[in-house]
């Protein structure tokens, strides 16, 4: 059950992180590692496209809070797209949506984020 994480640096300046699989403990850590690498490279606008993730757990998600914390610090931006309804509901329950926008799909997310 290892999460696959890949990255696409869009010309619009948004770095998109794609996941495939279960976001558990290790999955969350892997995403954070990739995100912090991107931030280290100067990326301040990150989009997490979770289309390939149908299941998460709260340990995995709490690790994502570290990315949000970092974004507040550097005045960057993290957003999500392609969430299952349950993952979206979970993000609402946690209040994550106050700090990270949720977009329906990647195209609209990138358009919105690049235009800030």
């Amino acid at each position, binding site marked *: *059950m290892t999460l696959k994480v890949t990255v696409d640096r869009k010309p619009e300046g948004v770095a998109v992180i794609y996941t495939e699989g279960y976001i*558990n403990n290790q999955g969350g850590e892997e995403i954070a590692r990739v995100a912090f690498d991107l931030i280290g490279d100067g990326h301040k606008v990150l989009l997490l496209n979770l289309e390939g993730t149908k299941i998460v757990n*709260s340990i995995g998600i709490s690790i994502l809070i570290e990315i*949000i914390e970092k974004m507040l610090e550097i005045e960057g931006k993290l957003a999500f797209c392609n969430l299952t309804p349950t993952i979206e509901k*979970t993000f609402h329950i946690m*209040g994550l949506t106050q700090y990270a926008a949720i977009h329906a799909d990647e195209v609209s997310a990138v358009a919105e984020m690049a235009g800030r």
Partner: protein
Amino acid sequence: MANSAILREVTLTLPMLPDMEIAASKTATAMAEYMQMSSDKIDEVRMAVVEACINSFEHSDATDRKVYLTFAVLGDDEPEKLQISIRDTGHGFEPTEVEEPRIEEKLRSERKRGWGLKIIQGLMDEVEIHSGRDGTRVVMSKLR
């Protein structure tokens, strides 16, 4: 009384080992699909079951290293409710003493975790936690 009869019940025993919560989530899916629950509701049940299993794995310290689950389909005649019980024989805890997590605080705190119970409560229709020195039993249910 509505939803009183157990129409069918499945029991599952899992070892407290990485990824075994997935077996629980699949059993939940099988029962929910049998009831023809919507796929969104099934997903919510799956996630809640995963959270409850992980809590037992991580916090119970049960010496038998096992989690005991029952999946009951309740209803009068037609399946109406899926009731899932997740039990361990660990040291238990006091649910009323668990602090409610708040995102503003988590953002400043070292400890980002502590969301499992809140998520379970948010995703299921009913949740009861029985915990004591003999262990913990979380009973959660969702209407079809």
